């Protein structure tokens, strides 16, 4: 197979590419010696964690690096035999969007908010296609139909904010494929999308590519997506290629220890055996929770449509149990975490913590009750006050609840060790830590109050997969050691499968299915849950089990 690969004339061939970073960066080269080829009709996945330099390679091919700070220092890029690095800017403009096109990660921001969808598709046609307005319009409408947008005519006239995220990404694809380019570069095109939408988009890219026979350079961090779409895989680490080969080989029989470690970090879809929990007491119980984000104001401010985020939600969490709340964006799962902790006021319902209704507490009582229910947040950048030292961040809760400040700080240092950080971290500020380390600090902060329940809102979704695995492992260890009860909100079904004893699946503010993780994952009953499960990227691929500690 790999012999075949070498024989065909490649669309894209990169040899020994080096991209230099400005002085004072943490390393001299963002990419150091990248070589790869993309053949016609082939999807080459470039996988790597953040900071691996994968996105810059796209910039180099498009000749859109932020020069002069970042530039190609060495190597060559050939596109259909032509040396791209030797092209003039005007020649490159003729190639971009025409013979090489690109789609980006954020469909929300990648389209100009002030121009209609039609105008933006028309722009690429106008730039490269000598055709009359009516002809271009027809072509644009055809493209919108090809990317399966329901009503091309009205989408053509819509502004980007008027269509959904998934549709915006379809528009981007329509734009990218409008002129049947030979090469398409897709930079994390599905990362910002929900799983069901993600699968649709991946399928769409696959189909269209088969029709056009273009080559695709697909950049991603997600091995599930790789398993779904890749023909050939290139694994990057700190700007260097550690391994490349056919998808089946890299996924199922990785050679390099780094690839092995990465793949071992991908959570398995098989849930753990159910724990015997039926006789543990219920610590947290929600009954009939409802939250509507009301239309604010009347005459004086603009009216907005009322949105029901959560309707009539009930659940019970037993001591030592991990209850997963899973759903796509807009399902109301995050609202649940905020209602339970009363960071948002519910419209009705009750949240009982050891029998006491939190929602009936006065503000002063509530402040006292808070030490029993703590939270770990999603965004490691935003969840720690940047102006406080780590020790003060962790000790803040106990101090608020009347602990002796000196003791509380002493305790904080011990907690740091508990979350596997050096006590030297205590006197630093949050910006000096990596994302995973910050999440550890967030966990230490939550533990400092010795709560009965921890509510974790997407605690690992912003982390690289290898770091994610370590934080999840820490969380699971602590849970088992301290017999914690965990309400775990996540969009990532793999993570839920790995950590949760039971799950509730939410859609549009309602629970569509609940049960033990084993039941829900192996035998989903509700059609929505079934769709969700069948949309997990790479669901048919089981990461090879390896003892990576030996590496």
């Amino acid at each position: 197979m790999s012999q075949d690969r070498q024989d065909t004339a490649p669309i894209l061939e990169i040899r020994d590419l080096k991209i230099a970073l400005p002085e004072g960066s943490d390393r001299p080269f963002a990419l150091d010696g990248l070589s790869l080829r993309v053949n016609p009709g082939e999807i080459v996945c470039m996988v790597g964690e953040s900071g691996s330099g994968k996105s810059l390679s796209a910039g180099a091919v498009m000749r859109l690096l932020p020069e002069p700070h970042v530039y190609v220092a060495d190597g060559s890029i050939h596109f259909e035999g032509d040396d791209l690095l030797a092209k003039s800017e005007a020649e490159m403009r003729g190639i971009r969007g025409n013979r090489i096109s690109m789609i980006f990660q954020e469909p929300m921001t990648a389209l100009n908010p002030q121009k209609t969808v039609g105008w933006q598709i028309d722009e690429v046609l106008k730039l490269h296609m000598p055709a009359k307005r009516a002809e271009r319009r027809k072509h644009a409408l055809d493209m919108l139909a090809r990317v399966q947008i329901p009503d091309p005519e009205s989408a053509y006239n819509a502004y980007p904010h008027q269509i959904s995220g998934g549709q915006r990404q379809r528009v981007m694809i329509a734009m990218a494929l409008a002129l049947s380019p030979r090469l398409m570069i897709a930079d994390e095109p599905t990362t910002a999308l929900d799983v069901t939408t993600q699968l649709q988009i991946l399928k769409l890219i696959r189909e269209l590519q088969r029709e056009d026979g273009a080559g695709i350079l697909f950049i991603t961090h997600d091995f599930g997506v790789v398993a779904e779409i890749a023909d050939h895989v290139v694994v990057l680490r700190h700007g260097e290629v550690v391994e490349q080969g056919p998808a089946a080989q890299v996924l199922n029989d990785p050679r390099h220890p780094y690839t092995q470690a990465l793949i071992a970090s991908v959570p398995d879809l098989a849930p753990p055996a159910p724990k015997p929990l039926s006789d543990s007491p219920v610590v947290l119980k929600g009954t009939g929770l409802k939250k509507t984000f009301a239309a604010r104001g009347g005459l004086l401010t603009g009216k907005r449509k009322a949105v029901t985020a959560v309707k009539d939600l009930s659940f019970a969490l037993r001591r030592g149990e991990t209850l997963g709340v899973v759903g796509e964006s807009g399902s109301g799962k995050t609202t649940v975490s905020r209602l339970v902790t009363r960071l948002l006021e519910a419209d009705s319902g009750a949240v009982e913590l050891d029998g006491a209704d939190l929602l009936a507490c006065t503000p002063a009582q509530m402040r006292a009750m808070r030490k029993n229910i703590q939270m770990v947040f999603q965004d490691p950048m935003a969840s720690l006050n940047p102006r406080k030292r780590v020790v003060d961040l962790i000790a803040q809760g106990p101090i608020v609840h009347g602990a002796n400040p000196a003791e509380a700080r002493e305790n904080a240092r011990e907690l740091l060790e508990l979350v596997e950080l050096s006590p030297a971290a205590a006197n630093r500020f949050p910006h000096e830590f990596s994302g995973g380390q910050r999440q550890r600090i967030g966990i230490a902060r939550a533990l400092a109050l010795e709560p009965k329940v921890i509510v974790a809102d997407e605690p690992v979704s912003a982390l690289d997969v290898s770091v994610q695995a370590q934080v999840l492992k820490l969380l699971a260890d602590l849970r088992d050691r301290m017999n914690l009860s965990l309400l775990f909100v996540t969009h990532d079904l793999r993570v839920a499968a790995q950590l949760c004893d039971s799950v509730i699946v939410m859609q549009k503010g309602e629970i569509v299915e609940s049960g033990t993780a084993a039941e829900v994952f192996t035998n989903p009953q509700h059609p929505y849950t079934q769709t969700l499960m069948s949309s997990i990227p790479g669901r048919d691929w089981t990461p090879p089990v390896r003892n990576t500690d030996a590496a």
Partner: protein
Amino acid sequence: MSIIDDTRLRPAEPSRAVVFWNRYRRNRAALLGLVLFAVVVLMALTAGLVDPGDPLRRAGAPLTAPFVDMATPLGTDQLGRDILSGLFYGARISLLVGVVATLVAIAIGVVIGALAGYFGGWVDDVLMRITEAFQTIPNFVLLLTLVAILGSKIEWITLAIGIVSWTAPARMVRAEFMSLRNREFVDAARNLGVSNTSLIFREILPNALPPIIVYASVIMALSILLESALAFLGLGDPNYASWGNMIGQGRAVLRTAWYCAAIPGIAIVLTVLSFSLLGEGLNDALNPRQKQ
């Protein structure tokens, strides 16, 4: 997991002050601003020491040109008052009015903006309508009116300048608070049981400070301009030398002795410029997101 270990700490970074200064000094214009500012402060502090004499009393022959008489190196005005001495004492008044009026404006602005931005809802509606009302009245006209009512004493002038300048910082603080109040670290603190007052002043305000500090330099510049305009129109405190007043007096002799107006005018331009440059430097140093 020896190959990817996330728990190892990065080397410690230098202290905030060091980082701040390193970023600040990268901007050469900001350094110039700092130097100019230091000169103005020095002038204000040494008024009366270096250049003896009351700036409001006769020091030499009227309308002596600059660089003619060493006793009055920058010349004298039509009443024989020493221009250099006026510059020094004027620096004192400009800075005093600038600093105090800025403090007044920022204090009002922070309180109104913080309450409106943090609580939102009807509190925000009420406070914002009041802010809009203040913003709708042309600020210099309101300033004139306040001075007409309160009188021309320097204390009242300073207060009046503060009162007409708080709306912009209020809006800015409100916007900062609206974006910060939804940050997870605020939720985290609330979830620890921290009270509203502490949330506003201990959690959010310190994070809103950098833009407030940058904005203070803008208000300082505008306050100095407002004070000098009042003094130029003859509505300043007659008991103190003021650059604006010197220009106002110089206007009468513009045809024959234009330097009487030009010298204090340049002083104002340089002082205000120093604040603008200072502000830009602070902005670069405090909000390092922007590219250099």
